C-alpha cells in the first residue's frame, strides 16, 4: 500500500459489489420463501422464523456495510472492527439459510454459498485493513 493511503481499494470494491448482490439475494430468497410456502406446506410455526431471520439479516447488512465502508475510507479501525463483528452474525444467518432452513432448494445453496464466499473474502480483507490501520 501507498504510505499515505491505507484504505484498501479491493475492500471498497467488495463492499460495493456486496451491496448490490445482497439486494438481489434478499429479493430472491424472499421470492423463494413465498414459492415454498405456496408449493410445499410449512409445518406449524416454521415459516415465521425463516421470514424473521431473513429480515433480521437484511437489517444487519445495512449497518455492516455502512460501518465497514466508513471505517475503510476514514482509515479507522473501530468501525471496521464493529463491522467484522456484525459480519460474524451475518455468516451465522447465512449458514442457517444454507443448512438449517425448513426446505433448502438448490438455488438457496448457490446463493448462500456465494454470499458466504463474499463474506469470507471481506473478512480477510478487513483483517488485513485493520492490521494496516493499527500499525
Amino acid at each position, binding site marked *: 500500500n501507498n504510505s499515505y493511503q491505507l484504505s484498501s481499494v479491493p475492500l471498497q470494491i467488495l463492499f460495493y459489489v456486496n451491496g448490490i448482490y445482497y439486494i438481489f439475494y434478499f*429479493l430472491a430468497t424472499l421470492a423463494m420463501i413465498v414459492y415454498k410456502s405456496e*408449493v*410445499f*406446506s410449512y409445518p406449524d410455526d416454521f415459516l415465521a422464523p425463516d421470514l424473521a431471520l431473513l429480515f433480521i439479516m437484511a437489517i444487519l447488512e445495512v449497518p455492516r*456495510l*455502512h460501518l465497514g*465502508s466508513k471505517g475503510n475510507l476514514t482509515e479507522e479501525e473501530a468501525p471496521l472492527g464493529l463491522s467484522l463483528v456484525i459480519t460474524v452474525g451475518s455468516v451465522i444467518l447465512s449458514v442457517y439459510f444454507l443448512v438449517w432452513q*425448513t426446505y*433448502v432448494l438448490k438455488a438457496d445453496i*448457490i446463493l448462500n454459498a456465494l454470499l458466504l464466499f463474499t463474506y469470507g473474502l471481506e473478512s480477510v480483507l478487513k483483517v488485513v485493513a485493520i492490521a494496516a490501520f493499527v500499525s
Partner: protein
Amino acid sequence: MSGPRVNSFFLGNSSGVNFSIILSSVDEETGKLQLANCSGSKRAGDWNLNVTPGMNTSKVTISLTRNLQLCLPNATDCCTTPLCVVEILQVLACRDSVILAHLLIQAEIYANSSFTGNVSENATIIPNQVFHPLGSCPCDLTGGACDVRCCCDLECTPDLKQLFNESCFTGVFGGDVNPPFDQLCSSQSMEYIPDWFPFLCVQSSLNNTPFLGYFYHGSTSIPRVPPFKIPLQTSPGRLFTGYRQGDPIMTEENEYFTIPQQSTAGQCVGNAPVAYLQNFDVKCLTNLASYKEGLPRDVRINSGTGDFIQQNVIYRTITDMGKFITESESLHTAEVLCQNVTFAEDYAFIWKDKNIEQINVTVFLGILCDGEILAQRFTVKFQSLKSTNVTVLFGNPGYQVGKPVKAANMNASDTFGSLNIWQPAGRGLCTLATSTPVLFGLDSFSGCILEVGIDEDCSLLRGNVTEKLNSLIQATHVGKRDNSSYSDLNDWVEIIRLDPFNSDTNVSSGNLKGICPDIPANLNIRIIFADVGAVQGIPQQQILAVQISYSTVIWQFQCGLLCENSTSFLPITASVQFIKVPAQPPIPMTRFQINYTEFDCNRNDVCWPQLFYPLTRFYTGEPYSQCLAKGLLLAFLVLLAAIMSNPWFSKLWNSSLV
C-alpha cells in the same frame, strides 16, 4: 427351552449314577471352558437339579429358582437389568467318578417384563398430525422391550440390533414414514422434470417433507334449516289496469278468487284461482267428512277498474240427486248425519274489454249424508256483453291454448265436425264414456275400457274397436286458425289418416280363442303447429297438419285361476300430441356483438382477457406458475429500474458508501 426350566433325558441304566450340576465360567483370555469333575451337588447357585429315574431313561430337570421380575437397581431378590441371568451350567452323570454323560447349558434369561412400576404422570405429547406422523415407528409394538426386526425401535440395544440388522422391516411399517418425494434433488423417478428443476429442487433432509402437510382444510358451514314457511301471498300489483286473458281474478282483500278446479295431476284443488276468460267445467269428488265450504258468498271481486262488485247469488235446490251422489257403503236407515251442502255452482262472468261487469252465481244446494260420495260440479263461463253464448277473443285469430280445435266435415251437408277424445265416467267403461273436444296445445291421453268376451271373433273385435275410435273423429278437415270460416277451403287442412291394415282373413289367430293380434286399440292424433306472426305482441299459432294413426296391440284374454271370468278388459286409448315446428331460431346477434370482436376470444387471435394472462385466468397455453414468475420478474426489474434511475436514490447510494 424357554423359561426357567429345562428337561433332558439320560439314556441308559441309571442305577448307581450320580447327577450333579456345576456352575462354570469361561476363561476370559482363551475363551475355553473348564470341564468339571464329579464333585458337584444337586444345587448350584440358583439352579436345582431333579432326576426322575425310570427303566431305561431318566428325566433330568434343571430349574431356576430366583425371582425374575424387573425391579429397581440395588434391590434384592429381583433382576436389576433386563438381561437377568447369563450363566453356564454343566450337568454331569457320574458313576464311581467316571463321567458317563455331560450336558452343557448356556443360559441367557431376561427378566419378566410384566409391568409393576409407577405410571408416569406426563402425558404423551401427540405431535401435530399434519406434519408428523403419529406413529413414527409403527413396528414398535411392545413398550419397554425390543421388537424383533424393528430397526427403529429405541428400546433395542445396538448389539441386539446387530442380530437382525439384515432383515429389518421395510417401508412405512419399519419406520420409513418419509419416503422420498419427487421434488427432491436426489429423486430419479420422475418422467416429467420441469425446466427450473435444477435450481428449485429441494436439497434439505427428509425430516421436513411437504407431503405430510396436505390435509384438507375444509371450512365448516352451518347447515341451513330450510324454512318450511308458506310464502305470503303477494299481490300482483297491477290490478287497476284491467284484466288480460289469463290473469287471476282478485278479490277485495287482494287475494285470489278461488273455485275448486282440477289440477294437472288429476285431483281437485280446493283453492285454485280463476283465470280471466278461461271457462272450465270440473267435477270434484268429496264426501261429508272432507267437505269444505268455498269462499263466502259476500266476497267482493275487483272488477279491473279499481272498484269492487258484488256477486249476484241465486240459490236452487237439486231435485235429481242421482246425478251427483253415488253411495259407497250400505246405509243404516237409522240416524245418519246429514248436512246441507252445495252440489254445484255455476258462475257466469259478464265481461267487457278488460273489466268484469257482473257476476251471476247459481248455487245448487242439496243434502249430503254420511257414507255418500258427492261429485260437486263447478262451471265458469265468461260471457261478453255483446253476445250471450259465444265467447270471442278480442283481436286474436290464432289458436289459444285451451281452446277447442275447430274441425269440419266437408263431406257432410252441414259441414260441422268434431275432433274428440274420450271422457271416461264411472268405472271407465266405453259404454258409459262420453267424449270431450281436443283442446289446442294440451297434449292429452285418455281412454276407456271395453269388455270383451272370450269367444269374441277377432275380426269382429277389430271392427268394433275401429268403429268406436272413428266415432271420436267426426271430421275430415281441421281449421288452421280459430276463426276459420266454413266457406273458405283454404282455411282448413285435411286430416291425414293412416288407417290400420285390415286383413279380411283370420291370418294367425286360426283356431285360437282368447287371443287376437293386431287390434288397433290406440288412436294417435298428431297436430303440427307453428308460430306465424304476432298480433298486438301476442304470437299467433296456426295448425299446419293433422295426422291420425292407429297403433295395434295384441289382446289376450286374462284368465283367473280357472278362466271363470266371462269378460276381459281391453283398454282403448286416444292420445293427442302437439308438435311445434320449426324450432326456435337462435337469438340474432346485435350489431355490436358482430362488429366489436375484441372481447370475443373465439373469433380473435388475441383478446383482452387472454392478454392479461396472469391476472385473468382465461388462457390455458402456459402454466400459471411460469407466467406468474416471469411477470413478477418483469415487474421487479421495472421497479428496480424506476428506483435506480431516480437521482434521490443515487445520492443515497453514494452517501451510504462514503
